[in-house]
């Protein structure tokens, strides 16, 4: 007999973890992206100065 409660726990943990990991990754990467874009914009000014 399948332990349905256990199965449900496994599936819910799985779905939540997948979205959590990729969601956080998405936020972290967009923040680092913003940082890099800003740095790139500053670069030409620095070389002039």
């Amino acid at each position, binding site marked *: 007999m*399948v*332990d*349905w409660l*256990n*199965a449900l*726990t*496994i*599936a819910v*943990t*799985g*779905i939540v*973890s*997948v*979205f*959590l*990991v*990729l*969601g*956080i*990754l*998405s*936020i*972290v*990467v*967009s923040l*680092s*992206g913003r940082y*890099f*874009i800003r740095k*790139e914009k500053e670069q030409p000014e620095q070389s002039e100065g």
Partner: protein
Amino acid sequence: MLEQFLEAFQGIGILNLSWGNMAMWVIAFALLYLAIKKGVEPLLLVPIGFGIFAANFPFTGLMDEGGLFYIFYHYGIENELIPPLIFLGLGAMTDFGPVIANPKTFLLGAAAQLGVYVAFFMALLLGFSIPEAASIGIIGGADGPTTIYLTANLAPHLLGTTAVAAYSYMALVPIIIPPIARLLTTTKERAMVMEQMREVSKGERIIFPILASIVIILLVPKSAPLITMFMLGNLFTESGVVERLANVSREALINIVTIILGVGIGATMSAENFLNPKTIYIFILGVIAFAFAVAGGVLLAKFMNLFIKNKVNPLIGAAGVSAVPMAARVVQNMGREANRDNFLLMHAMGPNVAGVIGTAVAAGVFLSIIK
């Protein structure tokens, strides 16, 4: 003397070839035919097919403890060595640029794991145990090495079947994706041209594998074997200073381990493991898992569009099923069919590589709670 002669004679292979062996040969030849004549995943199906053929000769001892194929299987697959090495090569081949440029597509790679869990429950309903159901569900992630890694861990007796199912469905991506994606989108949605992607700097590309490792491994430690190798391979390529290591990872090494992996998997496919109704169920569940994965990706893309400014073409959600880069190519073709000036290929690569990470995470979670 006559008796001794008869005894020796009985050891001859041909008298001991069982019906089961011959049936497995038919399957081996069918896979070889598909690989050689139809070009279906030949890199894997040629070694797997030949492995099945060779392992089904009587008295070879190939799969007995200490036998050649046993060594391939035991040290390469059962010990979980080869799938991470394949991930090293895949990491060295992967361009994370598109997903770095458009990080929200990470979520599409997550949504496409829906198929994994749908198939997991359906497998349980059909009477599979929890570890078996997890191994079958992961087929829906459309990622061969991850499927093999998880099955070797949780349900080794199903290894041959899940591996063959995963690789054959990957080859069927061009047939499975279009009808589902078409059903869930309008022509207008498919025709939508996405804004051009920003350029991703070298620094960002180097930082990415490190940032990604931190986030993923801290949250799901059991995904570490696959994720560390994936990110290391990527760092080899993006750092630009170890071209030799990057090259050997994505070419020589991945080819060598693929041979051992393919033969080792084929060798596990004995008549009693393969010729039973479970195999048919697994193939049916595999295609259902795939279908729901596509649907999950497309539907989340449509849902995301309700909130975001730079809308995405919902088709790229379908590429969340990994199967890199076939799924992205299918998306490109579908987008172009709706609008000749629509080029979704690079946009679809974002969810495509995110799907690989998503599946590895899903496998890591299964590993940490089952058993």
